[in-house]
């Protein structure tokens, strides 16, 4: 049952990304081009996505997930070094290739070999991340 609803969420996510223009790397770079000819389309994508999601969080407040367990706890509002450095790296890669993790997986089937090269490289980066995090933590005991 969990797998079924998980797949259903994945299907909706994939269709939404594809229809919205998030899988078009030109649109993504156009959106990020804040110092140039800015394309606001993805602002509408984000704005529209936030509405059902915000309602879901509100609904979740005094309830439990339909299939049992607990809703994810709110994270400590702590701005750590990995959060800042990681987000800088992620943004740089997003701007360079025009792909972030969701749209990369969604366009594997229609975006050509370039998406696969990006995707395999991304998996490599994800495999390296835990070791890098250990080093980062060793450098800054506070975070």
């Amino acid at each position: 049952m969990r797998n079924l609803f998980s797949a259903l969420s994945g299907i909706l996510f994939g269709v939404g990304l594809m229809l919205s223009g998030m899988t078009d790397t030109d649109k993504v770079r156009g959106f990020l081009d804040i110092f140039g000819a800015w394309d606001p389309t993805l602002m509408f994508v984000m704005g529209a996505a936030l509405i059902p999601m915000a309602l879901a969080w509100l609904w979740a407040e005094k309830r439990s997930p339909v299939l049992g367990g607990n809703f994810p706890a709110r994270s400590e509002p702590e701005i750590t070094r990995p959060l800042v450095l990681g987000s800088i790296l992620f943004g740089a890669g997003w701007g360079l290739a025009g792909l972030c993790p969701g749209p990369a997986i969604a366009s594997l089937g229609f975006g050509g070999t370039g998406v696969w090269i990006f995707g395999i490289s991304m998996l490599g980066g994800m495999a390296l991340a835990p070791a890098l995090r250990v080093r980062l933590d060793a450098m800054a005991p506070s975070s």
Partner: protein
Amino acid sequence: MHMQMDWIWGLIGGGIIGLAGALFLLVNGRVMGASGIIGGLVDGSGRSNAGERLSFLAGLMGAPIVVVLLSGWQPESNVTGNIAALVVGGLAVGIGTRLANGCTSGHGVCGISRLSTRGIVATLIYMAAGGVAVTLFRTILGVV
């Protein structure tokens, strides 16, 4: 006209993305973050619910293929032919999203809608970094 249609599709697609996140949260009780779902399989931290992760990814990858086959519509992806940019970009996205514990879906859609401080800060940072990268690599250097 073209631009106006883009906005409408942006709203429709965005609404569907939000529904996907709402469903995953309310039914499975989980945050729909693409980098977390993939990364947990890569580094083994998500082994206990690997089935849930794999089903999500199968739907995410499979649904657009079915849409293309049924509709005959070939969506634009305009992926750069610059292999180095794809390799470096992929590595940066992979490392960065795992260090930051989230990407556009987790920190962006799911985090901001919960008014999470970390989600909002991360989104402002990766968007600013993305803006700098586009200005540098596309406008100034012209490599992508």
